[in-house]
């Protein structure tokens, strides 16, 4: 970390060109390859008008920027940065004012931090009995189990007398045929 952090560095260069200096700070991460990620960060002015890279300490500079309102975007894989509205004042010799456009938070110094880390892959859910049960095959097995084990239970609950009478009735009527269903044949 650099202790003596300077505020906006504004340099008067010529008639209408100024310098914007800022810094990108990414929370220290234990992930291996963090340094490699750091070297691939790009800082983009006005949608690609200028592109610059970060120095090892995280600082970046845009040179020869005219006075006006500009947009700075930080592109770092794995992180989402809010674009920053940067006003370079012509009256105050290139004084810089910065606002995050996503959160509308104004920055007292141009230190850009990611709004959130981005995870590009879904996390695999750990093994779960429910996930199997929810699958079509699980439902099939479940239904089978219900039929095999619960149906006999249901049958048992029926009163044997009633069952017998029902069976009697079935037998007396025989196999219900089409003719028996038609009242005209009686």
């Amino acid at each position, binding site marked *: 970390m650099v202790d003596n952090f300077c505020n906006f560095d504004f340099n008067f260069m010529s008639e209408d060109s100024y*310098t914007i200096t800022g810094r990108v700070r990414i929370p220290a991460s234990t992930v291996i390859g963090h*340094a*490699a990620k*750091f*070297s691939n960060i*790009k800082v*983009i002015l*006005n*949608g*690609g*008008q*200028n*592109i*610059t*890279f*970060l*120095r*090892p300490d995280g600082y970046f*500079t845009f*040179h*020869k*920027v*005219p006075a*006006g*309102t*500009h*947009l700075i*975007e930080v*592109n770092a*894989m794995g992180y*989402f940065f*809010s*674009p920053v*509205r940067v006003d370079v004042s012509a009256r105050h010799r290139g004084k810089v004012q910065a*606002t995050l*456009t*996503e959160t509308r938070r104004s920055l007292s110094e141009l230190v850009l931090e990611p709004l959130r880390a*981005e*995870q*590009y*892959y*879904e996390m*695999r859910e*750990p*093994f779960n009995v429910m996930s*199997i049960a*929810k*699958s079509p*095959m699980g*439902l*099939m*097995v*479940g*239904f*089978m189990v219900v039929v*095999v084990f619960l149906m006999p239970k249901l049958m048992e609950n029926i009163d044997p007398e009633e069952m017998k009478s029902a069976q009697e009735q079935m037998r007396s009527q025989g196999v219900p045929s089409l003719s028996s269903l038609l009242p005209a044949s009686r």
Partner: protein
Amino acid sequence: MGIRVFLPLLLFLSSAIVSFSLYEDQAGITDWHQRYIGKVKHAVFHTQKTGRKRVIVSTEENVVASLDLRHGEIFWRHVLGTKDAIDGVGIALGKYVITLSSEGSTLRAWNLPDGQMVWETSLHTAKPSKSLLSVPINLKVDKDYPIIVFGGGYLHAVSAIDGEVLWEKDFTAEGFEVQRVLQPPGSSIISVLGFINLSEAVVYQIDSKSGEVVAQKSRVFPGGFSGEISSVSSDKVVVLDSTRSILVTIGFVDGDISFQKTPISDLVENSGKAEILSPLLSNMLAVKVNKRTIFVKVGGEGKLEVVDSLSDETAMSDSLPVADDQEAFASVHHEGSKIHLMVKLVNELDNVLLRETIQMDQQRGRVHKVFMNNYIRTDRSNGFRALIVMEDHSLLLLQQGAIVWSREEALASVTDVTTAELPVEKDGVSVAKVEHTLFEWLKGHVLKLKGSLLLASPEDVVAIQDLRVKSSGKNKLTRDHNGFRKLILALTRAGKLFALHTGDGRIVWSMLLNSHSKSQTCERPNGISLYQWQVPHHHAMDKNPSVLVVGRCESDSSAPGVLSFVDVYTGKEISSSDIGHSVVQVMPLPYTDSTEQRLHLIADTVGHVHLYPKTSEALSIFQREFQNVYWYTVEADEGIIRGHVMKSSCSGETADEYCFTTRELWTVVFPSESEKIISTLTRKSNEVVHTQAKVNTEDLLYKYVSRNLMFVATVSPKGAGEIGSVTPEESSLVVYLIDTITGRILHRLSHQGCQGPVHAVFSENWVVYHYFNLRAHKYEFTVVEIYDQSRAENKNVWKLILGKHNLTAPITSYSRPEVFTKSQSYFFAQSVKTIAVTSTAKGITSKHLLIGTIGDQILALDKRFVDPRRTLNPSQAEKEEGIIPLTDSLPIIPQSYVTHSHKVEGLRGIVTAPSKLESTTHVFAYGVDLFYTRLAPSKTYDSLTDDFSYALLLITIVALVAAIYITWVLSEKKELSEKWR
């Protein structure tokens, strides 16, 4: 009971927002990513130290990269901005790569091992000029000499350690253009040689540490110089005079500046205009004259003599010191299908150190550049390796008579893309080879099951990954049932056409367009666009499909065009022709002839259109539709859009019966003081729309799906520049929807306080465009949907039943369409480079926008997020329909980046193509990198996913059979015991 619980759950799952989420282990199964750098401009070897041998290159795609010299892989790479072209590259202090870019105004140092930027310095520049980087070669690290940079009229000395500007000299006032900076080793006095107005030679001798001018000499050369210069030694340079017929040796170190003129006619007979070639050779220079390369030796007193002469097609490297104060250089020339690499000593050209002959692919064309590097072999002799850049932009390393590695760098500059089908599988070809045995197949699925249940060991995970990547025949060269295997045809700036396989991205064939057409009139046609020429599917099934490549002889739009027809299966050119007229616009017509060749119209600069193919059958088809062919032109600079119609055959002027005259039908003129055209767009002509009707909460809307709609965006002239150059009051953006048949403006929408750049996508009945809102200082997306009012009364069911509807009435552009539009705007948190939309075979599957962001990633955004019917509180009915509550900005869900952890560096375009399976679409993105993936915008509802667990299905079936058997046995037993009772 269970079913009742799951049913709402299933419903919920199916209606939830679908995003292309991938698991980490699924990466690389359907997608591939290839990294390129582009055509190499400069190369610097770094091989002194033991360990990794590398070469630092800068390219025409503004890439600086470090390549592994052993395998050609990229160690690191940085893609600079599009306006940040690299002018020079060097290695300082043995640990920093120095690049000079942006016409000499930006100097950067990169850490050699990992590519981290160490420092960056912006240098003063006043006017555009040639720029020059001179990095001292210091073998002793303790002697720190500065880097000398010239650019834009200023000379700077920059410390290599921290990039601090030590001193600067302003030469703008006198107009001094530095041509050479000579840094003699071991001395801090540098010589800076340059010209003033190409007529006066000036030499400054400057102390590089302090910037103090030690001496200044100048001398006027009557007649003037041409600007080409070759430095031959530490005290002499040779230049060409303005007539290009006299070589002037300038000696400048001792005493005054001396000129010594040698007419080229003294060196070679019948000399024409000469050209000094760029290779730097010691005490010698290479001059191209009379289509030959001559080597001119510079004697001690500036005397010139010809020592050797080579054929024109020779490429040379700079000379570099080999043992005993001698310098050697490499030259490469062609002979038939072979190239000869020779390394010679500069002092004795007869002494050939190395002579190698290498078989070279004809499709690579000529050698353009040679970079040589030497190394000490184990027997202390000199070995040489050469890095060569070919006409097709490929980069090859030659060593010991063989091509060690090669990189197809043409693919970094893809200009146009189309897709093609693979050949149908023949009966003789067996599939069984790929499928292995049943046992292996089952084993694979058991492994997959373990993986999906997270029970797999690390070795298993590796095995699963291998299985997936090599999965059953995804790389075969035949058509598959689902249409997943296709060829991607990519035309590149190098004039090379590539066919890439969608399975793994390998190059199936490649073809350099100009290698065959060796006509005198057009030596180097550059391809501009690619069209489907013949796609046999009904008739002509025995024919191979072919594509049409339209090219131009020169970059100028009035240059005569060249047509080339290429067989898609074999990659061979069927025929090519110089068409003898210019090419402004190529229009594929919706008609094909009996061999399924598509009719194309090509408009030239004179206002005529030409019909292709030039057959009488095509002519008769075209004449039948003569009255129905309309076309339009956009003159963006003048702000005019013109509609044209066919008039007559131009037989009155020429005998060509395939040439037609046109007349102007309508013009739309935008007021030049307030509106400037920045973007125009039409629908893709091959897009399929499934249904014209759209249900709008118990109401019916009819999409206005005319193919003849054009989207035009204009911006105030002040707002045409970059963001930050204009205030919100000064800029406004206006978009139009124009019918291209009648020129009628159907809709106009104005955005106050907004500016471009506008990126838009037009599909079905909607346009989505991206622009910058200056008031909010945010990017915005706006969607406009167009509906047909005239069909609105058809929603009465009785009318439909009684047949009183007008649904079958033909749509015509002649009648005034009654349309109404709905639109809505949203904020978006990123700059956009390009937008595309998914396309499927029948157009049933819901659409996703594919947004190429400034970070070179591709974000898939469900079209439902850009639906003008979104409201803050959707009603229950609307929710059921899938309407998402309105938010002020569009969400960026990291899981829906289709490029997942890859970046398509330098992204320029996204192409989508349908597969045969309705749910699936091919996506191909190109820039400096290439990326391909297959997407299912509504998930693969019509096929089982790759993840489908066949093993689980089998286990279930086995379990069910077992259960049936057991219950049968049990019931038998029970019955028996009942009977015994």
